[in-house]
């Protein structure tokens, strides 16, 4: 079974600064997808960014980018120019290519943004 680990329960960043959230995962598969979801106080799960394991290029979505290290099974999220609206719980998630389409989530990181 796959496991996803987020080692930082809480992180804090100053507004306009950059912060990196860590995520590691364990899998024996070679084809899979990785995601970062944001859960603000409204509790809505919002997809931030996704990465296909077969792609070597790191995904980027505006201020959000990932550092995907397949050999190390690491998938960190970098948020640049942090904004107050970025404050939320962030979940890293894994989805197998072949063994069902459900997501396996990490324990989450609470990000606080200081004005």
């Amino acid at each position, binding site marked *: 079974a796959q496991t996803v680990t987020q080692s930082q329960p809480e992180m804090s960043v100053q507004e306009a600064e950059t912060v990196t959230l860590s995520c590691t995962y364990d899998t024996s598969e070679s084809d899979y997808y990785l995601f970062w979801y944001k859960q603000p106080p409204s*509790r809505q*799960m919002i*997809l931030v960014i996704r990465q*296909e394991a077969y792609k070597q290029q790191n995904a980027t979505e505006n201020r959000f980018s990932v550092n995907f290290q397949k050999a190390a099974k690491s998938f960190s999220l970098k948020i640049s120019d942090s904004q107050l609206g970025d404050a939320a719980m962030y*979940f890293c998630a894994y989805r197998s290519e072949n063994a*069902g*389409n*459900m997501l396996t989530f990490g*324990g*989450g990181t609470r990000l606080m943004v200081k004005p």
Partner: protein
Amino acid sequence: AAGVIQSPRHLIKEKRETATLKCYPIPRHDTVYWYQQGPGQDPQFLISFYEKMQSDKGSIPDRFSAQQFSDYHSELNMSSLELGDSALYFCASSLTVTGNTEAFFGQGTRLTVV
């Protein structure tokens, strides 16, 4: 654009009662997933349906059952409720085609068992 609709948004039940949660996927989406997120926890996969058939099963208690109907909406039935069932229940939907990876989440149903 239409999103995943869950009803009700909030539900309060007493122990040993029964609850039914409903999920209306995005139009033309053929796959529905149910997740349970306890207080301070990450979402845990319960069960999924593809084209009205159960496709995967996760950590769903035997007291829970679910199905997907001909119009693709899904219902999660929970019986003999326990205090520990208090959680946020998410439904997500996706269109299962090659290369599509994204599942869209509803806003969740918050179930409180008292």
